């Protein structure tokens, strides 16, 4: 066992010899350091990548603030060490420690991982290993921390089911408090770890994988999931907050640079556009907005506390924020003297977006980003992002005429039914945009095309579709590389290997856990980093467990296939997704669902929440729904006092 004092003194000798030691010291402005023994419950919030990435994660910043507001709990931070620091830690036998108090992660009551994307999985294993915590849930006992995880990737928790004791599915603000409460009561009850897991499973939004067993068909496809515990919920419904709480303003200010070194303010959660490829758009429904006052006051407070020079107004589709013009005007008026730079990402392709950016007087250094995602109108109808080419060109003209010289265009290749002509159209469209720029500002005009490869995600209308094969991806990229050459044009793309990994893991089942473990054992880590990603290790890992990677990526799933993530209920019904997929095959689009409800399933599932929050708290239109019989389960657990508002539709 290492005491914090021992860890601190060993660090003295190590830090001078590693890159960016500022990642490993803690002690930053606004860090919360509580007396370790003054609280009942201690949580380590872990982002399983380096500090520079993890410090920019808004979700963990919110949880850190919320937990530390409790007098009976504390939250500290940990991030994965870069490889030089990892070697130094392993060499000196120092466990992965929290930045605040320098306790080993193994000393915490709860270790909570943020898993927003799949390429962090091996890093999460590595973090557990560095802390000396057994990787497999089944190997952990009462002396070990409870290991939980949340974040968007956890909507398909199955690939990580063997390593995580309990997943949070959905929004963390309220559920984290309930998890702490349950943990405290369990501690007082002095019962075994199994009892803790069962109690956690009764909380709305918590999935405890060990209480279920997955069954497969002889052909390897998923058959069904079985409850091993009578009281475990099936399905597990995602957690939401009915109304967004006031934004967090208490951010830690790092001493070193990080990727998004700024104040993040979430102006809106969810998206009503229904782009069919978009995981976030499907799982974060319904749309809830914050008021302009709330956002402006939050910025004011956060500047006072942090002194940051940049604010990011975050949402999945900023242009759709109801009072976006009012917000932009209020922000630019209120803060213009403070030399703040305001970013407003995710704008729609329309000239109004250019007016918004103009009003923000945002420095034009970064270029103006538009994400048409596909270059032909046919393709954009399939993915349900219907924008006409003329509208895109008109927007481009507005951007160049207002003083921007660079337009960044984001596309994806590999959409369902994409042909090589659709790919050629990407190059043609980029050139057409550049030509508009040349007419307006001459040779200064620049187009940067970012072309990633589509990965079908679970819980979306494209969850059935196969990924492009390696060869298809290479051929499409070769075409783009040939066509997008010359002055004023720049192309970036993803390596097909990276795409494959994301694709395997996204729609993986429980058997994938063993692949992840075998890959980690062979040295896979930092899979999101070019300098570390080892495709060969993953292929070896698949081979070693006797699974075919193409089963997960290149197979077109029959329309009636049962998916291994279906017991996780995003409340967007499979019936809706199926219909939307079939519509896409016919090129049939859906309009913004604020205009017309397509009955995705949100409203009936959360009918009571909606009734309690009428009007425009949710952007869903008012629809007449007949009262659906709901059963409110009030679990009686060991402590007898947890009453989750778990609602299951009969």
């Amino acid at each position: 066992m290492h005491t914090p004092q021992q860890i601190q003194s060993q660090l003295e000798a190590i830090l001078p010899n590693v890159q960016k030691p500022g990642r490993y010291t803690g002690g930053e402005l606004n860090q919360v350091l509580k007396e370790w023994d003054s609280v009942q419950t201690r949580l380590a919030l872990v982002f399983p990548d380096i500090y520079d990435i993890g410090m920019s994660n808004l979700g963990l910043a919110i949880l850190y603030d919320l937990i530390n507001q409790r007098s009976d709990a504390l939250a500290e931070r940990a991030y994965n060490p870069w490889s030089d620091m990892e070697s130094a830690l392993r060499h000196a036998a120092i466990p992965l420690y929290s930045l605040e108090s320098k306790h080993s992660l193994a000393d915490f009551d709860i270790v909570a991982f943020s898993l927003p994307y799949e390429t962090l999985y091996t890093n999460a294993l590595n973090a557990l290993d560095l802390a000396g915590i057994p990787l497999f849930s089944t190997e952990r006992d009462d002396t070990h921390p409870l290991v939980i995880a949340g974040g968007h990737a956890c909507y398909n928790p199955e690939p990580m089911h063997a390593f995580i004791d309990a997943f949070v599915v959905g929004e963390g603000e309220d559920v984290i408090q309930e998890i702490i409460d349950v943990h405290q009561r369990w501690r007082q009850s002095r019962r075994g770890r199994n009892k803790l897991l069962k109690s956690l499973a009764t909380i709305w939004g918590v999935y405890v994988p060990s209480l279920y067993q997955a069954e497969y068909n002889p052909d390897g496809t998923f058959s069904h999931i079985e409850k091993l515990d009578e009281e475990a919920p099936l399905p597990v419904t995602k957690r939401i907050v009915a109304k967004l709480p006031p934004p967090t303003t208490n951010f830690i200010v790092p001493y070193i640079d990080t990727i998004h070194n700024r104040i993040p303010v979430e102006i809106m959660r969810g998206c009503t556009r229904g782009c069919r490829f978009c995981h976030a758009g499907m799982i974060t429904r319904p749309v809830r907005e914050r008021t302009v006052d709330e956002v402006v006051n939050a910025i004011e407070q956060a500047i006072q506390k942090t002194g940051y020079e940049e604010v990011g107004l975050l949402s999945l589709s900023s242009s759709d924020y109801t009072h976006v013009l009012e917000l932009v005007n209020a922000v630019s008026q209120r803060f213009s003297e403070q030399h703040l730079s305001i970013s407003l990402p995710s704008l729609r392709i329309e000239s109004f977006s250019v007016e918004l950016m103009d009003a923000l007087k945002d420095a034009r250094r970064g270029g103006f980003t538009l994400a048409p995602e596909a270059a032909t109108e046919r393709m954009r109808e399939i993915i349900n992002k219907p924008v006409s080419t003329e509208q895109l060109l008109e927007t481009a003209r507005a951007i160049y005429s207002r003083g921007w010289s660079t337009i960044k265009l984001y596309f994806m290749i590999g959409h369902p039914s994409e042909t090589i002509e659709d790919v050629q159209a990407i190059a043609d469209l980029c050139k057409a945009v550049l030509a508009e720029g040349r007419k307006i500002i001459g040779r200064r005009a620049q187009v940067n095309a970012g072309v990633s490869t589509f990965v079908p995600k679970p819980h979306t209308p494209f969850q059935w579709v196969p990924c492009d094969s390696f060869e298809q991806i290479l051929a499409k990229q070769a075409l783009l590389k040939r066509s997008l050459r010359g002055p004023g044009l720049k192309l970036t793309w993803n390596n097909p290997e990276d795409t494959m990994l994301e694709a395997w893991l996204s729609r993986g089942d429980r058997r994938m856990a063993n692949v992840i473990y075998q890959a980690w054992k062979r040295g896979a880590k930092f899979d999101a980093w070019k300098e570390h990603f080892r495709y060969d290790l993953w292929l070896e890992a698949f081979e070693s467990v006797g699974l075919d990677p193409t089963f997960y990526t290149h197979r077109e799933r029959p329309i009636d296939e049962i998916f291994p993530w279906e017991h996780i209920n995003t409340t967007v019904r499979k019936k809706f997704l199926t219909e939307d997929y079939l519509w896409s095959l016919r090129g049939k689009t859906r309009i913004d669902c604020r205009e017309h409800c397509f009955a995705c399933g949100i409203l009936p599932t959360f009918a009571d929440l909606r009734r309690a929050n009428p009007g425009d708290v949710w952007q869903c239109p008012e629809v007449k729904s007949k009262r659906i019989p709901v059963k409110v389960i009030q679990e009686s657990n060991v402590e007898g006092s947890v009453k989750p508002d778990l609602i299951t539709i009969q």
Partner: protein
Amino acid sequence: MRLRITFAKTEAMRYTGHLDLHRTWERTLRRARLPLAYSQGFKPHPRIVLASALPLGCTSQQEVVDIWLEKQESLSEIATRLNQAAPPGLGIIEVNEVAPNLPSLPSQLEASVYLITFLDPIPDLDSRLYQTNQAPEIPRVWRKKPYDLRALILDLQRLPDDENGCQQILVKLAAREGATGRPEEVASVLGGESSKVRIHRTELIFLELD
């Protein structure tokens, strides 16, 4: 108004590099609600000029920065607000107003004085000091460029051991543009491995400040 602020960079900030320190100042000013002046032009940047970059990992008790404000404020008010707004590891020592037309701090810097503490004992420290002082030149390579360290050492002497019994030396190194001595190089010549020394800047010496 042009402020000249003397500050300490202590433990919590020893791994904050020069550029990040610059940004730390900008944020501190914003938290203190002081009207930091910005340069004119397409991409305005805050008018903050640090006298000298401190090598990463070193602490210091005398760093100097010039900061321009758009409006006149009382010095005591500025000092109070800066003290409240400064992050852990940045200690405000002195705040003065200086004439706007003074030459820039880096152009006036002449030398830096460092206190080097050896965490592991160096048995032949005295003879190494003697050899270093006597050497006509000490050829070293820094970032692939050869240079003579001896020419940059203006003074080098042993101090009494610290309260933990660790050996200490005080070295005065040239700190002119294009001729800046690095304290870790001196430590290395004397046998101190980088992870086994602590380096603390005690003084910045300027040609003439007023």
